[in-house]
């Protein structure tokens, strides 16, 4: 494996469109549930262990070589919110374009052909990691990190939170990120039936509310 390839894939500047999404932080800020660095940390921790673990395991499974179409179906069943399914597919399509230009592979081509409107983003990311010669734990790390870095970055803009404080939140979560990535990769090794389905009721509910806002800063 190439450590540099992991840095390229995990880089927030990788052109896959993630910066436009708050990961549910925008409605949480609007409702006053996230208002400072402490509540941001609590939000990120909750998201990491629910939606984050589920997505990381899907990515690890794709990187491990499990059938991406079966994983895409498993992702649908784990995403009851249509707003979040739409977001995941939109991000998956953007990730696919970047991935095919960066690490082309027949597996990416096949998934792009089978899901022209986009597969779930974690599945695409996992397959991208595989095409880049990375492993399941790497893919899980990327997704787990995205799960918390998205909201942290968004909250800097939404609350004018000190970026140093937001980054400190991420740094303090590092040991838990490692554990979630390991847990995700371990589940992926056991096959599709072993994949976690951890979910967060408030994220699902507020995603639908947020999608109906007439004006918002972030797409999701």
């Amino acid at each position: 494996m190439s450590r540099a390839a992991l840095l390229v894939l995990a880089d927030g500047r990788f052109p896959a469109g993630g910066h436009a999404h708050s990961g549910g932080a925008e409605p949480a800020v609007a409702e006053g549930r996230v208002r400072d660095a402490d509540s941001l940390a609590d939000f990120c921790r909750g998201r990491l262990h629910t939606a984050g673990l589920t997505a990381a395991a899907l990515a690890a499974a794709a990187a491990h070589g499990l059938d991406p179409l079966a994983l895409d179906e498993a992702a649908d069943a784990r995403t009851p919110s249509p707003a979040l399914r739409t977001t995941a597919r939109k991000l998956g399509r953007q990730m696919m374009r970047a991935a095919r230009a960066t690490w082309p592979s027949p597996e990416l081509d096949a998934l792009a052909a089978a899901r022209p409107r986009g597969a779930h983003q974690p599945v695409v990311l996992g397959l991208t990691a595989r095409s880049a010669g990375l492993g399941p734990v790497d893919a899980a790390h990327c997704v787990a990190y995205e799960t918390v870095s998205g909201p942290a970055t968004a909250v800097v803009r939404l609350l004018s939170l000190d970026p140093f404080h937001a980054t400190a939140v991420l740094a303090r979560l590092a040991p838990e990120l490692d554990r979630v990535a390991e847990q995700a990769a371990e589940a992926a090794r056991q096959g599709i039936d072993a994949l976690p389905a951890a979910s967060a009721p408030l994220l699902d509910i507020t995603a639908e509310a947020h999608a109906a806002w007439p004006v918002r800063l972030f797409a999701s």
Partner: protein
Amino acid sequence: MSVRATARLRAEPDGRGGTALPVLESAGPLALRRTRSPRAAYARVTVVGAMSAPLNGDRLAIEADIADGARLTVDSAAATVALPGARADGEPSTYTVELGVGEGAVLHWLPEQLVSARGSDLRMTTRVRLAPTGRLLLREEQILGRHGEPTGALTTRLTVHRAGRPLLDQQLAYGPGAPGGWDGPAVLGGHRAVGQLLLADPAFEDAPLPARLLGPTAALTPLAGPAVLVTAVAADARLLRGILDDAMRELLDGLKTEQTG
């Protein structure tokens, strides 16, 4: 002493427009009673908790098989309260529900709340296999702690397959030992009652419902397959039930209009 018990039931069309129950086996604390059904085509079974259960270490299960064309409502006489049991070092308890719904069959699975009492540790698993033309109405409510009490540890997993493919898969984990952030702004935000209402019906294949908010802490969402899920959090069991009851009434009325109108 921990209890291992599996209650079983099977529903079949009785050949006269109603539903028969050729298998109705109570086990341990799970007593199954045939009760009077308000609708002629449906049989009704009420789960009567003969003892308080489950206690930590117990392994309880219910297996229900709804044969092609049968119609069944299952409810319960009281809330299920997960309790710690006598020994502090007890293992977690498990409660497993396995449901099969055949072609043209209907299952309304509407138990009372699951209450996680302080010190309890329960893993609840519900698995449903739906035939393509089977219909399912399923309610689950998790109440975290009895009145004014901190919650026990509770993990629930709800997995529904339709025609062999995944329709819904959700896992919730709360209380002591659950991964961090479960009570925080992304997951529960301090709410103590969480509920799901799932309605799967082939009628949604041609006429999916749009997503809709049901107040500030509840949403009705169409799944990727022909089903809708209501997800709600509330301060307490009563408020949660109010949200789910309103949604259930509206959903069932909507389907009635769909089928007759």
